[in-house]
């Protein structure tokens, strides 16, 4: 494959540095690719062609002057439409922010643009990051199917969520790389379903300033890329302490891209609880083969136990909605967003303040947002706070401690990402609990603040289509280097991450 759009960050960066290609050529190639596949895939809510070409020209100018450039200077990036991008419409996938134009930049995207990256567009997502399929987005970005984003590997299936647009864009070569967010698996699961690499860093590694908050104690932004090396390069750029995010850590940022790929004597733990009932046997086969590969590379494999980990989903679906109900209170039709005030004609009797809140939110939010806000209000309300919210916080401690104990015995955990491959559109959208249960393997990581990564590990055949299966690496807090190194070793010795979808119906 020698099309420019199929390059990785590392490859494109090298070719740009050697003067073999220009950023303008690369950006144009991406937009040509978008014209062909985007009507089917529908990865983007907003495309920024004019601005992208301007940015690309500036990058080429800097390079011609001989300035010292970052590894992502001139590289086309897609950004999940949850990051505030100044002057560029940002919707969070919701009608409540249909015409919202941010007046400041998120720290993550600020770092990308300061490093010279080119913004291709804002990628589709489950509304306010709430979902595992991108189906809850209010934006039907796949013109051909009149639906939300489609999985490039099988257009009848979802790309995963909530960062489904970001994952699909990378998988379909509609960008060189993208950034997403992960609160309960929203980077890792779509990465798995779309056969790309997705990393959720340690909580506090990346600033959350300007990243629309879902659950403030769980959210983390991270790279979604074609390779582990690319993920490391992006992580270098976006990591670091931010005075505007007091949960961001002052922990030093090493050079994550210094990867040896040597995992001899690494102790890999296989937690039994992640391989139980409900795991598709063909998915399990792929993961087991991946574990064998790690053995061949010199790692030792140990069975481990996390007896309370199955409670993590219940913990998550109490704590996350509680934090959501607080974070989404700001969408009240007063300062920005869809508003019942706007509909008022000046001379008519206006609605009361309470009615403005209740109508603006009812009209602007989708069903999933309403469900989670209400769940949150309930578990925080008088009479229920102790039984639900406080209880969940205590179980969170138990789960976190169990992980800490395990990491005294092993370096890394290997598990599947999703119990089943990408499901079909509409299959779970009528049953919220069934949708939530599909998060069971990714969710435990966020309450514990741990870093985790999904890498392509193979495919399973369903109804004649090859569907991607990702393998999850989980490490203790601040172990991004180890996780990236294991992933790098895996990608040096396997070809799964090089496979590309054939985007036909």
């Amino acid at each position, binding site marked *: 494959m020698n099309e420019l759009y199929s390059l990785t960050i590392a490859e494109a960066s090298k070719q740009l540095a050697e003067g073999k290609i220009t950023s303008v050529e690369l950006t144009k190639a991406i937009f040509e690719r978008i014209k062909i596949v985007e009507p089917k895939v529908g990865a983007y809510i907003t495309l920024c062609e004019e601005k992208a070409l301007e940015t690309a020209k500036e990058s080429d100018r800097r390079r011609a002057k001989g300035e010292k450039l970052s590894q992502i200077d001139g590289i086309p990036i897609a950004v999940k439409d949850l990051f505030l991008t100044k002057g560029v419409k940002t919707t969070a996938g919701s009608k409540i922010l249909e*015409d*919202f*134009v941010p*007046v*400041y930049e998120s720290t993550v995207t600020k770092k990308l643009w300061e490093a010279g990256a080119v913004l291709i567009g804002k990628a589709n997502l489950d509304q306010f990051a709430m979902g595992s399929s991108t189906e809850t987005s209010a934006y039907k970005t796949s013109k051909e199917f009149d639906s939300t984003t489609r999985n490039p590997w099988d257009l009848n299936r979802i790309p995963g969520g909530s960062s489904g647009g970001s994952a699909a864009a990378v998988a379909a070569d509609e960008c060189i790389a993208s950034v997403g967010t992960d609160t309960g698996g929203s980077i890792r699961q779509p990465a798995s379903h779309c056969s790309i690499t997705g990393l959720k860093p340690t*909580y*506090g590694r990346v600033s959350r300033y300007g990243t629309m908050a879902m659950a403030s*104690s769980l959210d983390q932004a991270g790279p979604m890329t074609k390779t582990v090396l690319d993920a490391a390069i992006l992580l270098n750029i976006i990591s670091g302490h931010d005075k505007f995010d*007091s*949960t961001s*850590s002052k922990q030093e940022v090493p050079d994550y891209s210094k990867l040896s790929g040597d995992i001899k004597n690494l102790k890999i733990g296989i937690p039994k609880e992640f391989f139980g009932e409900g795991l598709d046997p063909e998915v399990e086969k792929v993961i087991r083969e991946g574990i064998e590969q790690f053995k061949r590379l010199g790692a030792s494999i140990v069975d481990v136990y996390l007896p*309370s980990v199955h*409670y993590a*989903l*219940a*913990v998550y*679906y*109490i704590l996350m909605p509680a934090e959501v109900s607080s974070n989404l209170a700001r969408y*009240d*039709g*007063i*300062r*920005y967003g869809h508003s019942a*005030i*706007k509909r008022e004609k000046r001379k008519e009797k206006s*609605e*009361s*303040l*309470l*009615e*403005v809140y*209740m*109508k603006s*939110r*009812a009209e602007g*939010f989708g069903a999933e947002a*309403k*469900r989670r*806000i*209400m769940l*949150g*209000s*309930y578990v925080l*309300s008088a009479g229920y706070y102790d*039984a*639900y919210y406080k209880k*969940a*916080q*205590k*179980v*969170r*401690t*138990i789960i976190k401690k169990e992980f800490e104990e395990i990491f005294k015995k092993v370096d890394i955990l290997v598990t599947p990402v999703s119990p089943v491959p990408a499901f079909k559109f509409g299959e779970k959208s009528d049953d*919220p*609990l069934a949708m*939530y249960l599909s998060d069971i393997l990714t969710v435990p990581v966020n*309450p*514990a*603040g741990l870093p985790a990564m999904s890498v392509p590990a193979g495919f399973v055949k369903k109804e004649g289509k090859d569907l991607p299966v990702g393998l999850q690496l989980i490490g203790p*807090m601040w172990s991004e280097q180890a996780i990236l190194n294991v992933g790098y070793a895996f990608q040096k010795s396997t070809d799964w991450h090089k496979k590309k979808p054939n985007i036909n119906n």
Partner: protein
Amino acid sequence: MAKLSVEEIEHIAKLSRLELTAEEKELYAGQLSEVLGYVSQLNEIDTENVDGTSNVTGLSNIYRDDAVEPSGISHDDIKINAPEFDGGNFVVPGVFE
């Protein structure tokens, strides 16, 4: 758990500042009850001597000087998104009757 009543849903909706139709009240009562039923399994686990975790960073009370810095956001910026903005103020229905 028993299904949430319409009154309970109305109470939650008011707390959430959401206006719901009659159909929505029925639908969400069922769906929320199912989820609450699932998460109630936490009652099985003993947390007698466990402290809750509200954040995993170990950080607390991050301070800075109480000094004003320019925000970089002008009234014109605010006008872009504000439903009603006049002379530097957001126009809202009366807070008091």
